[in-house]
């Protein structure tokens, strides 16, 4: 499954880039699974996505929970809790 991943704010600075195209292995079909998949990269990725830090996700521009399913072609974004206003 092909998806696009975006990173914002503190997370973008940690991973050093803002977007990447990913081909997901079979079985990685939820936000949680994607976080675990990214954590397997180790280092900064492990620190960010091991579940200790609060990382919010959006799929196709909608805030979603960790159980949300990911589909072919989705735009998945990861970011810290928002601080606007």
């Amino acid at each position, binding site marked *: 499954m092909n998806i696009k991943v975006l990173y914002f704010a503190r997370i973008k600075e940690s991973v050093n880039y803002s977007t990447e195209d990913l081909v997901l292995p079979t079985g990685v079909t939820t936000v949680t699974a994607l976080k675990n998949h990214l954590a397997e990269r180790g280092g900064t990725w492990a620190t960010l996505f091991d579940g200790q830090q609060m990382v919010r996700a959006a799929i196709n521009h*909608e805030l979603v929970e960790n159980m949300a399913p990911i589909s072919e072609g989705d735009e998945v974004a990861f970011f810290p809790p928002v*601080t606007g*206003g």
Partner: protein
Amino acid sequence: MSVRVQLEDFDVAAELRALRLASAEIGAVVSFVGQVRDINDGDDVQTLTLEHYPEMTTRALEKITQEAQSRWDIHDSLIIHRVGTLKPQDQIVLVAVTSQHRGEAFKACEFMMDYLKTQAPFWKKEATSQGERWVDAKLSDDEAQARWESE
């Protein structure tokens, strides 16, 4: 029912006047203006830079607007949020609501601010004399939003 995200400052007077004069049925205009404070968590703030997720931001603000409209009998609403680099006492955000009677406008305006604070994809980075830092989300904002969930 409009939302705008922009680099430029906004003219509160012109915005409120346009909203108010749109209809002679309007009796109440409630507005919130946020300005950049010069102190946060004990340090002096020199500049504040707002990053956002453009494709999502407009959508999130429109959802907040629609939710307010479905909950209260309001006439119109406006959200303007700035992005880019601001300095202390710059205006950051305007939320304004018009209605026939004041109760609805007060509730809708506060609701919209509470949801904006927790749902709209903006992130603040401060430059202080101690260096740059991302602003942490506040538990009190989550709590302010949660009040509305049970209504």
